[in-house]
């Protein structure tokens, strides 16, 4: 046979491969606006499972000198502290000191399938890669702005050698830090800038070897007798096996005296930003819902958390919308699932929430919650990458979210920063932890 006939036979193959490529490309694009899925009654589209899921993460470029995020009118923003190492959450102490929790994700579990290798790479892009700003931290830095100019003069390592810490809460003089594998109690002395005490483990939490959603958000109830800790799921949708989900996708209630714990509410895929609503004293959380069911599924949400309630994960979402990826299915659990209170739109990745009680921001922000949206990866058009304010009335969301801090993405849609945890400082200004911008931002009235 001649080379000519080789070419002749190669053509159908080329056509076949080209049409394959076209089909693959055809699976992306065409994403409707996610605006219809915000609020108490989101309109949920049909599920669509991908051949190749979109993995679109903004490349991290960081902030250049003098660059800041944009804020809504009537507000101003400045860097309370920069040069931090991957600050994930902020906590305001009663004396005005700020704790910036700097943490790196725990080591990846061994790859269980080829996808894990690819996802690991994409995740590393999302958090700034192995390059600058993501060196080992796992510590808490104390920031102090004694002269009140909005810039912290004191940066001291307050607690070091922690294990992927995230949540912090102070009750009396007991400071609780939620590492990824345990809640640890430290004695706190107001004014001190360093804790040398090794701390005491109050309660162990589900950590590795698989530790997929590792951020453990922490808060205390009104009288300080109980702690609430968010324990995220160990997978997107049980692909690491249902055994890996034991005691996860839940909010635990922990007795502060004894460390005894129980599941307070479950079916919450990745609950963060645990906060007590100031009017009703109810526990609220923001939750990252499941991926890979479409660009507009499933909306992440904020909700009050009812004792003993089941919010669906993994079997269903928003009440009784069954997820076909879970086997065996559990109609009994689906029947119990309740819908959350307020949708924030799909894939925005809310990781921080703070109620606005005591804020010194303008009147528009007097009653409601600030939510830090870390930003999407599982849709082609970016969603999130901002801090929004959800107005509340009578202890419930009332109205549309308002953009408060934006501009984390630049004109080329590269990430200068990404917001995570939020808090109010003693003066009532809003603080935002920016994990890839390595900054804590302070938003105050103009």
């Amino acid at each position: 046979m001649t080379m000519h006939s080789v070419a002749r036979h190669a053509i159908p193959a080329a056509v076949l491969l080209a049409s394959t490529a076209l089909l693959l490309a055809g699976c992306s694009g065409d994403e409707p606006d996610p605006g219809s899925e915000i609020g108490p009654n989101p309109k949920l589209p049909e599920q669509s499972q991908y051949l190749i899921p979109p993995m679109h993460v903004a490349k991290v470029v960081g902030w250049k000198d003098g660059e800041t995020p944009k804020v809504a009118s009537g507000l101003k923003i400045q860097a309370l502290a920069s040069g931090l190492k991957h600050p994930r959450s902020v906590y305001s102490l009663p004396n005005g000191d700020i704790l910036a929790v700097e943490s790196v994700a725990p080591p990846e579990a061994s790859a269980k399938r080829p996808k894990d290798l690819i996802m690991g790479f994409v995740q590393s892009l999302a958090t700034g890669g192995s390059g600058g700003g993501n060196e080992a931290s796992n510590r808490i830095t104390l920031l102090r702005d004694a002269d009140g100019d909005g810039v912290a003069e004191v940066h001291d390592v307050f607690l070091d050698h922690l294990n992927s810490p995230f949540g912090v809460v102070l009750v009396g003089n007991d400071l609780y830090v939620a590492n990824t594998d345990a809640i640890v109690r430290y004695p706190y002395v107001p004014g001190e800038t360093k804790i040398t005490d090794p701390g005491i483990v109050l309660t162990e939490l589900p950590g590795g070897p698989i530790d997929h959603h590792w951020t453990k958000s922490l808060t205390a109830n009104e009288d300080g007798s109980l702690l609430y800790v968010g324990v995220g799921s160990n997978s997107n949708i049980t692909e690491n096996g249902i055994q890996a989900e034991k005691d996860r996708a839940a909010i635990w209630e922990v007795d502060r005296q004894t460390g005894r714990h129980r599941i307070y509410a479950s079916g919450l895929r990745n609950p963060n930003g645990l906060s007590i609503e100031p009017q009703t004293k109810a526990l609220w959380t923001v939750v990252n819902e499941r991926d890979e069911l479409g660009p507009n599924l499933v909306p992440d949400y904020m909700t009050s958390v009812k004792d003993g309630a089941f919010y669906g994960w993994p079997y269903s979402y928003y009440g009784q919308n069954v997820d076909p990826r879970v086997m065996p299915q559990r109609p009994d659990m689906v029947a119990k699932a309740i819908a959350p209170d307020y949708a924030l739109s799909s894939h925005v990745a809310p990781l921080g929430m703070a109620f606005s009680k005591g804020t010194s921001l303008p009147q528009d922000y007097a009653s409601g919650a600030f939510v830090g949206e870390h930003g999407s990866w599982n849709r082609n058009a970016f969603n999130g990458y901002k801090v929004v304010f959800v107005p509340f009335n009578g202890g419930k969301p009332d109205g549309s979210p308002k953009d408060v801090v934006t501009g984390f993405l630049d004109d080329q849609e590269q990430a200068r920063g990404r917001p995570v945890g939020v808090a109010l400082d003693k003066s009532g200004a809003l603080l935002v932890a920016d994990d890839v911008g390595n900054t804590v931002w302070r938003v105050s009235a103009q």
Partner: protein
Amino acid sequence: MTYSTSGIPIRRYRASLRAIPLHFAAACFTGALITDIAYSQTAEMTWANFSAWLLTAGLLLGGLAVLAGLVDLARGRFRFAGGAALLYVLGNIAVFVVSLFNAFIHSRDAWTSVVPTGLALSVVAFVLMILVAVCGSITERRIAGGY
């Protein structure tokens, strides 16, 4: 009348280069069918993970087999000897394309990474491989001078 008679040809057996990666790829895709069936019966994620690895390995080996096949062609160890040879080539390409789709389906999470589409594609690839094997042996015989 006289006829010219051909002598009995003496041939050195010339093994094809493509056979090795092709057989390993076929073993991988067959393995993926078996582990897909196991997953569909147990919902135990380990089986689905096996399938994903087997498909990936099969595709890598399949890619190697394409290169080896081109070398065979250049060195005269493969000829388009009739329809069977054409079916053999197209069939191999079809197995590769089906398994490529299947690998993407298997990259979904949990149950629907296998049932129903992934399992169905594994069956399709398996049936195609049997047809390809038959076409391949016919082609080998022709190239070796048989009929």
